[in-house]
Structure formats: structure tokens, C-alpha cells
């Protein structure tokens, strides 16, 4: 690729195509020699991206095949040993079950509620502008701030127990984050609480571009809003709904490490440990690097498989 001084090359090539010659493809018209010559301008961005993103992701697979019991310890090739250790470890299976539970509850609840809320907002009921503004709040709050709120709400002296006591239901008060029966569900609640609003705004924007006539025609046919919502509007935005589901799937799967870390540290025991937290915990708290990255490979594969599955499930069938 030419790295000749770009600024100096302009005068030697006059505009290559007179307007009359510019027929079918507009893109073809602007692809003169000059434009080809400046393709190298995209290289720095690509190099940056490869070094900081693609490289580390590939490295996961390499490290997963090493015996590496700590940063300063010698590394040896382990082949598939790490994967075997992981698969024999009950802690991994507990984290795996927790991740599946988390996805199985959070994803459907979040997406169905978000879609219904989006449909409601898209009908432009009174106050819908204010509602749209409010629904965005979780999209603005950083993970630590969200976690601090749940921490303050669920701590023994926190908001939830305080309200329960005020209502005379003090017997229901719990140490929510340190109780093996509720810790994982607190994480799931955080996912759902934050996920609904943001997804609803995304879907409402898409619903906004569906022609009003479709809804009115449905009403003339006597379809109620429930039917209009699920059998008329939903098929139209099905593809987009799939993309939003995929996004939430990835955020829930990979993002849970931060929530678990900030709220429960996987405890009590491993009751609220998830796969992505296990990757973090084994690498940075227990320095079992090969094991950690082998779990990372599982996580990666699970992410890809889930994405393809969701994509297939919501593909537009014309």
C-alpha cells in the first residue's frame, strides 16, 4: 500500500469520471484512484483493534492449554488437561448451573417486559416523553453505582428490610446478599431491573418506525391491543427483537462477573458464582491461570452458541 505523501498527490489526477458517465453504482463512481490510494488510512485503526482486542481473545485459547499455577511460576504445555480439570470440578458445574438459571430467568422476563413496555410507550400515552426519559436511567448508571444501590438496598439495615419493617413484615427481612437462597436471585434482580428500561427504549424506537396505519387497521378489524401487540407488531420487528435479545444475552452472560464481584463475591460458598465470575476469580484471586482461561474458552463457546441460537430463533420468516 502506498504511503506517498497524500497531500501532494491531488493535482496529478483530475476528476476521473464526468458526471454523465456515473451510471448505476454510486459507490463505483467515487472509487477513483485517489480513493483507493487512501485506503491505508484505515490501517492504524485496524492495527489498534487487532493488538488490543483480537490478540487478547486469541491468547485465551493459548493460555488455556498451559499449566500456569501463578504469574511468576514457570509455564508448561498442558494440552487438554485444564479442560479435564474444569469438567471434573464441582465448582465449575455449580457456576454453570447458576449461569443457566440466571439466563433462563433474566432473559425471558427482561425481554417480554421490555417489549410490552416498549409497545405501551410507542402508543404515545400521556406522559410518554417523561417515561422515555426515566426508562433510560439504567443505561446511564455505571455498574459500580448500580451495585452500590443494590448493596445499600439489600444490606441488613438497608432499604428493603427497612420498608419491610415499616410495613410490619419484619419477619421477612433477610440478609439478602449473604443468604444462599437469595444471593443469586439478587444478581438476577439487578439484571432484570437494569435491563428492562434500556431494552424498552431500544424497541420503542424501532416500533416508532412501524407505520401507524398498521395498528389502526388492526383496530378496525377488531383486534385488541393484546393481539395487535403480539400477532401484528411483533412479527414486524421480530428481527430487531432478536438483535436486542442477543445484546442482553451477551451482557448478562459476560457482565455478571462485575455484579457478582461487587455484590456477593460468589458467596456464600459458591452459591452465586457464575461462569464469568469464575474466570475472574481463578485468574486474579486464586492465580490458577490455565484453569481460568479454560473456563474462558467455555464461556466464549457458550456465548457464540447462544448468539447463533438466538439469531436463528428470531430470523425474519417472510
Amino acid at each position, binding site marked *: *500500500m502506498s504511503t506517498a505523501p*497524500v*497531500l501532494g498527490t*491531488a493535482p496529478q489526477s*483530475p*476528476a476521473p469520471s464526468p458526471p454523465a458517465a456515473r451510471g448505476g453504482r454510486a459507490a463505483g463512481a467515487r*472509487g477513483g484512484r485517489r*480513493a483507493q490510494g*487512501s*485506503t491505508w*488510512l*484505515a490501517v*492504524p*485503526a*485496524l492495527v*489498534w*483493534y487487532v*493488538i*488490543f*482486542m*483480537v*490478540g*487478547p*481473545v486469541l*491468547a*485465551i485459547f493459548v493460555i488455556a492449554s498451559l499449566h500456569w499455577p501463578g504469574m511468576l511460576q514457570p509455564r508448561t504445555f498442558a494440552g487438554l488437561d485444564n479442560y479435564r480439570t474444569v469438567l471434573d470440578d464441582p465448582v465449575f458445574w455449580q457456576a454453570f448451573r447458576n449461569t443457566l438459571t440466571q439466563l433462563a430467568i433474566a432473559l425471558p422476563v427482561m425481554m417480554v*417486559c421490555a417489549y410490552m413496555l416498549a409497545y405501551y410507550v410507542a402508543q404515545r400515552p400521556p*406522559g410518554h416523553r417523561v*417515561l422515555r426519559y*426515566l426508562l433510560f436511567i439504567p*443505561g*446511564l448508571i455505571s*455498574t*459500580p*453505582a448500580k*451495585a*452500590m444501590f443494590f*448493596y*445499600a*438496598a439489600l444490606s441488613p439495615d*438497608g*432499604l428493603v428490610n427497612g420498608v419491610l419493617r415499616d410495613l410490619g413484615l419484619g419477619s421477612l427481612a433477610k440478609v439478602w446478599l449473604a443468604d444462599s437462597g437469595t444471593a443469586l436471585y439478587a444478581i438476577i434482580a439487578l439484571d432484570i431491573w437494569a435491563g428492562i428500561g434500556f431494552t424498552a427504549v431500544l424497541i420503542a424506537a*424501532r416500533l416508532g418506525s412501524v407505520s401507524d396505519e398498521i395498528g389502526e387497521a388492526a383496530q378496525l378489524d377488531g383486534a*385488541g391491543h393484546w393481539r395487535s401487540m403480539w400477532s401484528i407488531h411483533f412479527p414486524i420487528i421480530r428481527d430487531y427483537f432478536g*438483535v*436486542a435479545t442477543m*445484546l442482553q444475552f*451477551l451482557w448478562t452472560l*459476560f457482565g455478571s*462477573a462485575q455484579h457478582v464481584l*461487587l455484590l456477593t463475591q460468589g458467596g456464600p460458598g459458591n452459591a452465586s458464582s457464575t461462569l*464469568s465470575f469464575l*474466570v475472574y476469580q481463578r*485468574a*486474579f484471586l486464586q492465580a490458577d491461570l490455565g484453569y481460568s*482461561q479454560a473456563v*474462558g474458552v467455555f*464461556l*466464549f463457546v457458550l456465548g*457464540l452458541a447462544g448468539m447463533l441460537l438466538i439469531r436463528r430463533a428470531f430470523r425474519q420468516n417472510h
Partner: protein
Amino acid sequence: MKRIRLSWLPAHVLAWGYAALLLIPVYYFLASAFKDNGAIFSSPLGLPTSLSPDNFTRAFDLGGLGNAVTNSALVTVGGLAVTLFLALPASFALARSTGRAARVMERAFSLGFLVPTFAALFPTFLLAAATGLFHTRTFMVLLLPATAMPLSVVLLTQFMRTVPPELEEAARMDGAGTLAVLRHIYAPISMPGIAAVVLLNFLNFWNEYLYSLIIIGPDPDQRTTQLALPTLVSTSGTDYGVLTAATVLTLLPVYVVYTVLQRRMQAALVSGAVKM
């Protein structure tokens, strides 16, 4: 009006009920920031009795928040500058080229959406160690733009494709070079796209937590607000007034930007997701 009907009552109640659930934390944080632990525990949702800024000043002392806010601003602004510096020329080139190389590169960037970067935490940590930038915010200024590259390039390329080629030809006749064309024609016309990229990445960079935790670590001279915040939680007794005051401070810039640029920001986030 046909919109307001009795059958809609459950929908109104549910929608606004959820909105209230989103507002409670905002109110709770604001109110608690002016209370002490006793008042927070005894009446969690009560109004504060005084508006003394004690908790805020103590948050600055205890959490080293002054430093942290400066660091967050440095990382965010530095990251945004690097992102634009890389993504603008790249999308300019991709939008104008029709060659095979350009098509392959554009495909590579759009595949970036599928790379679950969370999984690569440990290798990234090794990279930071190898470059000698471990425990510095400098590495974050270099790393964050890379995470932003797929979305930024794909989004900006689409905006730059809308520039009419006649404009460039006219400028070329006047003797403008390639970079002048980018600066004076493509960049101004793509302004809505640039605004979307800046806003999206502002949110992501300011709020980034997990990578910063690993890379920057506990050094108060380097850490960002998102890292300083959780350090105010202590097992031996958390001062919730200080914690909530600090949280309010970290949310403030984001809320101000959102309130001022609400429509733009929603459009930006929506377009970010649509381009997946």
C-alpha cells in the same frame, strides 16, 4: 381521546410502577447523601432534615474523589481523542474505497461486535504488563479506543457514505488534498455520526469498571471514580451517607449530559444497537 381508556389502566400502572422503581434509587441516593447512617437506617425514604454538604466533603477526603474525578476525566477525554483520531480517517477511507482490501477491513470491524471482550480480561492484563503500562491510566487511554473501534468505524462509515461525491470533486478542483477533504467536507457533514460516537463512548468510557479494576488497580493517584466508589464500602461499617454522596458525584456528569442532549443521546444509543 382513544388512548386513554379504562382497559389501559393496568398498563399505566405497570409502566409507571416500573418507572418508580427506577426513580427510587435516584431519590434514595440524593436524600441519603444529606443524612447520617442513623437517619438512613431508621427512615430510608424520609426527606433529609438538613442540606449540609458534609458527606460530599468527606467523600472527597475519604475516597480521594478529587483525584478520581480528574483521572476519570483524563481517561475519558484521552480515550475519546484517540478514538476519533483513529476512527475518522478509517471510516473516511472505507466509505470512499471500493477495493477488496477496504471491503475486507470493513467486514473485520463489523465482526468485532461478535467478540466478547469480557472474556479477554487476563490476556489484556498480560499485555499491559508487557508494555510496562500496568497500573497506569495511560493503558486505559490506549485500550478503551480499541474496544470502541468496531462500533465507531461502522457507524461513521455509514454517515460518510452519505457525502455526495460532487462535493469532493469540486474541492479537488480547487486543489484540496485528501486530509483537507476529510477535514472540510466529510467531517462537517458527518457531525451527527461523530456526535453519536462521542456520546456513546463518553458513557462507556466514564462508566468502565472491570478493566480499570484490573489494569489501574488501587493506586489513588491513578484510579478513576468508578474504582474509588466501591472502596467506600467496608465490612467494618460502611458510612452510607458518604457512599451515596460519592455515587451522586459520579453520576452527575452523565445526568447533566443526558438531560441536555437527551434526544441526541437516545438516538445515539439506539443507532449503536441497530448497527449490530
